C-alpha cells in the first residue's frame, strides 16, 4: 500500500490503469481532460499495456468501447457534460447490449452559457439509459469505486455498464491523499473478465438483430432485474474490497451520525461531503440531524430510504433540476416513500451552474426545513446570483 496525493482525475486514471482494461477509448473535454491525459501518460511509461484508442468524438469513444467490450475486452472511458450528452445514443446501446463498460463522468454544467463548473444535470439526464450510476465525494472514493465498478459491471448477474460520477474541479482538480493498494490486491479482487457473451469467430453469432415486441419486452425486464441484483451486490462487493484493501465505500447510502436523528439530510457528490461539516455544527447546537449521502442513483436505494423515513423527516438537496418538475433526487425520494411512510420530505435546489454550496449554506437549508417554512421545494441562494 502506498499513499498517492493527486487530483481526482489522476487518481481515476491510476484506478483505471490498475484495473488493467484491454481497451481505453476516450476523447478529451474539460474538466475530464487530465483523466485521459493521465492514462495516456501510463501508455508512455509502459504501465498501461492495453489498447489506447484516440477517437474523434465521444460518440465514437463509446462506440469503440462497445465494439471492444462486445469482443470480450474489459473497457474504460471517461467524459463530461456535452461529451456525455453526445454519447447518449450509445449509452442506451451499451446497456441494452449488456456490456460492462466502466466510465467516469465528471459532473459539469451543460451549456449554453459556457460554464465548466459542476452540477449534476449531465448524468441525471442519462438516468434512464440503464447504466448503474455512482456519485463520489472524495478521491479515495473515486479510486475504490472505479475498481469495484469493474467487478460489479462484469458480475454475471449484472452485466451492465457503470458510470462513476464526480464533481468538476471540486474533485477532478483537487489533490487529496489516497491509499493505493498493491497491484496484486486488485488483480485478485477483479479476477479475469469472463464476458456473458462475445463476438467470437470460433462461435459465430449475430448481435443486435431484429427482435419482436415480446422478445424486446423481456430484454427490458432483464435489465431491470440486473439493476436489482446490483443493489444487493454493491454492498457485498464492497465488503470483499474492504477485506482486501481496508476501505469500504460500498453503501448505497453513506450514513453519517444518523443515530437518534429526527431529520436526515440527503445529498449527493461533493455536497454530501461538505454536509458532514454542517451536521457536526448543527449537532453541536443540539439539532437532531444526520446525513445520508446517496452514492447510487441507479439502482435507486428505495428500501434504505424508506427505512430512514421511519426514523426521521427527510431534507433533500439537488444539484440538478428536471425542468418542468423538480429536483430529481427529491422526486425519487418521494416516490420511494409512497404508501410506505408518512415522513415529510423537504426539497431544495442548490449549487446549479457550479455555485458553491459551503456547509453554512447547508445549515441554513436544514434550518428552513426544520422550521417548516418551506412548501414543496425551494431554490436556495438564487437571490445572490
Amino acid at each position, binding site marked *: 500500500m502506498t499513499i498517492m*496525493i493527486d487530483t481526482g482525475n489522476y487518481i481515476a486514471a491510476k484506478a483505471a490503469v490498475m484495473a488493467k482494461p484491454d481497451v481505453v477509448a476516450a476523447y478529451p473535454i474539460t474538466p475530464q481532460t487530465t483523466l485521459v491525459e493521465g492514462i495516456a501518460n501510463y501508455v508512455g511509461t509502459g504501465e498501461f499495456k492495453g489498447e489506447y484508442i484516440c477517437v474523434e468524438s465521444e460518440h465514437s469513444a463509446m462506440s469503440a468501447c462497445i465494439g471492444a467490450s462486445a469482443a470480450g475486452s474489459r473497457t474504460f472511458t471517461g467524459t463530461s457534460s456535452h461529451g456525455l450528452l453526445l454519447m447518449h445514443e450509445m449509452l442506451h446501446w451499451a446497456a441494452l447490449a449488456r456490456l460492462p463498460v466502466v466510465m467516469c463522468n465528471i459532473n459539469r454544467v451543460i451549456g449554453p452559457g459556457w460554464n465548466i463548473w459542476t452540477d449534476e444535470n449531465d448524468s441525471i439526464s442519462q438516468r434512464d439509459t440503464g447504466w448503474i450510476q455512482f456519485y463520489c465525494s472524495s478521491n479515495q472514493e473515486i479510486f475504490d469505486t472505479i475498481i469495484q465498478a469493474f467487478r460489479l459491471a462484469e458480475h454475471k448477474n449484472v452485466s451492465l455498464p457503470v458510470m462513476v460520477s464526480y464533481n468538476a474541479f471540486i474533485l477532478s482538480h483537487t489533490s487529496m491523499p489516497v491509499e493505493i493498494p498493491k497491484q496484486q490486491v486488485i488483480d485478485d479482487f477483479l479476477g479475469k473478465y469472463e464476458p456473458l457473451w462475445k463476438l467470437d469467430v470460433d462461435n459465430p453469432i449475430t448481435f443486435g438483430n431484429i427482435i419482436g415486441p415480446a422478445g424486446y419486452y423481456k430484454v427490458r425486464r432483464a435489465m431491470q432485474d440486473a439493476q436489482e441484483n446490483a443493489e444487493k451486490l454493491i454492498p457485498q462487493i464492497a465488503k470483499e474490497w474492504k477485506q482486501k484493501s481496508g476501505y469500504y465505500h460500498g453503501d448505497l447510502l453513506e450514513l453519517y451520525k444518523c443515530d437518534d436523528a429526527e431529520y436526515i439530510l440527503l445529498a449527493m457528490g461533493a455536497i454530501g461531503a461538505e454536509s458532514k461539516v454542517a451536521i457536526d455544527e448543527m449537532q453541536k447546537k443540539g439539532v437532531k440531524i444526520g446525513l445520508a449521502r446517496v452514492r447510487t442513483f441507479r439502482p435507486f436505494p428505495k428500501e434504505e430510504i424508506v427505512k430512514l423515513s421511519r426514523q426521521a423527516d427527510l431534507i433533500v438537496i439537488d444539484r440538478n433540476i428536471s425542468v418542468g418538475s423538480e429536483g430529481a433526487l427529491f422526486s425519487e425520494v418521494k416516490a420511494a416513500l409512497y404508501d410506505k411512510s408518512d415522513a415529510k420530505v423537504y426539497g431544495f435546489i442548490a449549487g446549479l451552474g457550479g455555485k458553491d454550496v459551503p456547509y453554512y449554506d447547508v445549515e441554513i437549508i436544514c434550518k428552513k426545513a426544520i422550521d417548516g417554512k418551506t412548501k414543496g421545494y425551494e431554490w436556495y441562494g438564487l437571490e445572490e446570483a
Partner: protein
Amino acid sequence: MHHFHFGAWEGTIVSSESLVEICLHGRGGQGAVTAANLLVAAALKDGNKGVQAFPFFGAERRGAPVRAFARVSDGEIHLRSEVYTPDIVIVLDESIMRVVDVLKGLKNGGKILINTRKKPDDFDFSKKFKVATVDATGIAIKHGILVGGMPVVNTPILGSVPRVLDKVTLQSIQGAIKNKWAGRLAEINVKATKDAYDSTEVNF
C-alpha cells in the same frame, strides 16, 4: 471560532485548532497551483492526515491574477467548498496587491507571506496581521531558477512556509521538491528553499 450572520440564521465558521486554510495569490503561469500541491504533499509527510490542494475553479490565463488553495488538518477533511476565510495568505507576485484585495477574508490574527524586497513593517496592514516577507524573486535569480529567462518563485517561496505554518517542516518541503524534480533542478530548488527559510523576515 467566530460567528457571522447570514440572514436570520447564525452560521458558524469552522476553525478547529487543527484546520489551517491557505490562499495563494499569483499570476497565471507562476505555479501557484504547483506550490499548493507541493505544500500539502509536504504537510502529509509531516503527519497531517487531512490535506487538500486545489486551484480556483475556472479558466486560467497566463499573466492574469489567479488563486490556489490548500487545507491542512490533523484529520480527514470533509470540506469541498472554496476557502473564504484563510488563516494564511501567500502572495507570489507583489504587483497583484494593486489589483486584488489579498487580505479579503483573512482571519483576525492571520498571517500573510509576501514575495517582496520590502520588510514586514513597510506594509500598513502589519499592525493588524502577522506579516512575513521574503525576496523570492531575488532568490530565484540567484539560483538560476528561470523559465524563458523569467524567475520562477513558486518553489523558493515554499521555503518560507515553515516560518508561518508550524505544521510543515523545511525538510518535507525539500522532500516534496525532490520527489517532483530530479538532478540539478531539484538541487537548485532545494537550495533556494533553504535561502528563503533563512532570509524570511517576520513581524511576529
